[in-house]
């Protein structure tokens, strides 16, 4: 591979290509930051432009837009509580509260640092371990997917602030919402109440925009509008070095989680971020609060999200199986240039593979450099007078929900969930577990039922090493609180309990 690096380097040092890479990254950040325009849509829209470019330049262009949009998604999540892309849904849980406290700049910097670190880890995984890790993806079949989702759901209770009971209640609501629409296995429509649009199921974006973004505007409108000087400051953009260093372990763990989920074909970034966030929340539940501006929450989500980018390219390049919908678009781009992604790409076009590696490295660097000045501009938006800001956010809520599928129904859905989210806020029911249920539930059901079709027996879950391992970990996670209770009861500690 190394002998091809000079060729690839030559391509990337060409001023025209560099300018194009900058443009693509910039477009990616901006489009990604717009709610409703996901990374997949950004790529689909920019794809035709790459047809006329040479294969290498085309890939630099698309990878630039792809990676840029993954970071861009976190901007609107942090500033407006509206996820720009599904992968940034978890970023806002801690990012938005931090921005509300007047530390928007800091939140954006954490996101940028975390995503850059995640990007680098993902890239390293891609370059160093691609062939080995690709085989590991094959250990994942329907039973393993099903158990992975069970594991994710066991984390659900920890993923919510406050009462575990209310968290589980909200999670079950999410699971129920996930059953709406056409069932994958039988193609029957469930819980559509005769509304034809509900056959398509509840789309994640209008749901998240409503329950987080719109509900937040409703809550803000309760208070008389006064321009709070403190809350509209951008705040220092750079967090203290020691504060950043404090989150290193989180970053490493989340990057690993991101890489693992990224490699598993078709798992998707929403799962990667859900997993890494829930994992950190569980680990630090005794000492730190999440959901009210904890930088660790931002770091967990963004590192996981961006580590998944490089990792998702692994099954694509080595096996020809796209890791998520974004890389599925990249398959289209490769094919048009006569490059068939798959086992033979490495032997037939090693120079091209080297160019992809370098393009991703270049993009990570460009995103970092471009985001630094852009961040200040983005953050300044928050200091607009509330009467303009709220209206602007509402407009984004509506257009963002509409843009996902060009359907007015999704706007109504967003408003419905906005109202529901507002009442849940009032009642103290956490809203984030609903999202976890909605993401994980349909995948659990589909894979569980497929497992039973293929293997015909529940016993299969206890006969495969990976499923046994994951079930054991799940059991431990669920038992821990009980052990805690037992310990307090039988061996009361001299120290008062935290809660």
């Amino acid at each position: 591979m190394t002998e091809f690096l000079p060729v690839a380097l030559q391509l990337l040092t060409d001023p025209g290509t560099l300018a194009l890479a900058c443009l693509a990254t910039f477009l990616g950040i901006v489009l990604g930051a717009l709610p409703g325009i996901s990374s997949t849509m950004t790529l689909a829209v920019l794809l035709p432009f790459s047809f006329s470019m040479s294969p290498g330049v085309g890939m630099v262009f698309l990878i630039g837009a792809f990676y840029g949009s993954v970071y861009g998604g976190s901007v609107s999540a942090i500033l407006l509580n509206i996820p720009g892309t599904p992968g940034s849904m978890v970023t806002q849980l801690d990012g938005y509260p931090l921005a509300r406290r007047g530390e928007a700049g800091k939140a954006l910097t954490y996101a940028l640092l975390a995503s850059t670190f995640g990007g680098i880890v993902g890239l390293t995984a891609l370059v160093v371990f691609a062939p080995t890790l690709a085989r590991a993806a094959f250990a994942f079949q329907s039973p393993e997917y099903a158990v992975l989702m069970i594991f994710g759901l066991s984390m659900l209770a920890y993923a919510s602030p406050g009462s575990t009971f209310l968290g589980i209640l909200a999670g079950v609501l999410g699971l129920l919402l996930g059953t709406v629409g056409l069932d994958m296995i039988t193609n029957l429509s469930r819980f559509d109440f005769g509304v034809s649009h509900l056959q398509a199921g509840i789309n994640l974006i209008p749901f998240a925009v409503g329950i987080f973004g719109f509900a937040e505007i409703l809550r803000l409108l309760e208070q008389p509008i006064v321009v709070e000087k403190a809350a509209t400051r951008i705040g220092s953009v750079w967090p203290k070095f020691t504060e950043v260093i404090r989150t290193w372990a989180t970053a490493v763990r989340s990057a690993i989680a991101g890489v693992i989920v990224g490699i598993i074909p078709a798992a998707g970034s929403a799962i990667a971020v859900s997993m890494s966030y829930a994992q950190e929340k569980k680990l630090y539940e005794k000492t730190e609060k999440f959901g009210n501006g904890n930088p660790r929450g931002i770091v967990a989500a963004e590192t996981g999200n961006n580590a998944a980018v490089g990792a998702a390219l692994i099954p694509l390049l080595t096996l020809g199986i796209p890791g998520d919908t974004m890389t599925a678009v990249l398959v289209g781009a490769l094919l048009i240039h006569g490059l068939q992604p798959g086992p033979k790409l490495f032997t037939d076009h090693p120079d091209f593979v080297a160019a992809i590696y370098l393009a991703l490295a270049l993009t990570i660097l460009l995103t970092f450099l471009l985001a630094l000045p852009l961040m200040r501009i983005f953050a300044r938006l928050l200091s607009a007078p509330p009467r303009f800001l709220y209206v602007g956010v509402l407009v984004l809520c509506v257009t963002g929900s509409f843009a996902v599928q060009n359907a007015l129904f999704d706007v109504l859905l967003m408003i419905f969930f906005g109202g529901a989210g507002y009442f849940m806020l009032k009642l103290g029911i956490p809203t984030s577990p609903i999202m976890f249920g909605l993401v994980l539930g349909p995948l659990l059901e589909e894979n569980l039922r497929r497992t039973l079709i293929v293997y015909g027996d529940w016993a299969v879950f206890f006969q495969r090493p990976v499923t046994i391992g994951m079930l054991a970990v799940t059991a431990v996670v669920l038992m821990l609180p009980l052990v805690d209770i037992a310990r307090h009861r039988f061996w009361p500690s001299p120290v008062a309990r935290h809660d």
Partner: protein
Amino acid sequence: MKSILAGIAFFGLGFFALLGNGLAQDYPSRPITLVVPWPAGGGSDILMRLIAETARKELGQPVVVVNQPGSGGSLALREVADSEPDGYTMSMIATGFIAEQYGNPNAPTLDDYRVIALVGTDPAVIAAGGKTGISTLDELIAAAKAQPGALRNANDQPGGTSYVAASLMENVLGIDLTLVPYAGSAPVVQAIVVGEVQTATPSVTDLIAQHESGEVKILAVAGAERHFKAVDIPTFTELGYPLVTGTVRALVLPADTPDEVFDVLEAGIMKALNDETFRETAKASGFSINPLGGSEAEAFLEQMDESMYPVLQEAGLVKVRQK
């Protein structure tokens, strides 16, 4: 002052442009919308964007792709069927549309449309996993007949392209497979490579890389002729089992579209589909382009409807209307 005048002139022109819309002889006088009932970035979406780009040159107006996914495509297709038949809103239908007609109460039927053109058929294949040791279609038939239902087949949701292909193959080969639904082609490829299933029925492009590396063996292609990406693989017909099936894509307009508008659009689209550059780009991406104009395309789809109906009936997918 100047700018105000310019503004008035601009709006005046816009007004007359709007008036012009009603006149069929000026068609097309504004951008045409191509509704793709699938998400952005999928195979059909990429192909439609290519067609839109080429058709723009032929029609002299932009063709704007709008993605309206949901409910197996039926939502958007119903909307297009009920839209103003002025030639400014067209849509795309694919194999799954045939099944939706009988299974989904909201879905439009073929009678609700005028077919502009058939774009082509991406043939389905039947492939066996490398670990099965099956390397010809006859070996597969023998293995399946030895233990009916023991071989599993990865495909998509009931009524989907791959599901229908698998069912048609079961009938023509006289075998019995256990059909396992997967969401999309990527999980199907993974399932057959690791051996969760022994057979799969996706399209040529989905599996050709794995076929070349020996991880799976494509046994036969359900095309009218051999596929340009897999010239060494025989067709079902060559092997004595006449079967042509796969992803059929066609462009449609509402049923009441007047002839003068329809003819202009049909001519423009057919020119675009026969454009050299377009065909080369589409071919490079693995799309089979075999254009058929309006009436021929309509006959083709009716024929397809005929052959799929018994399969759908057998699978219990004929629920809301009968043939």
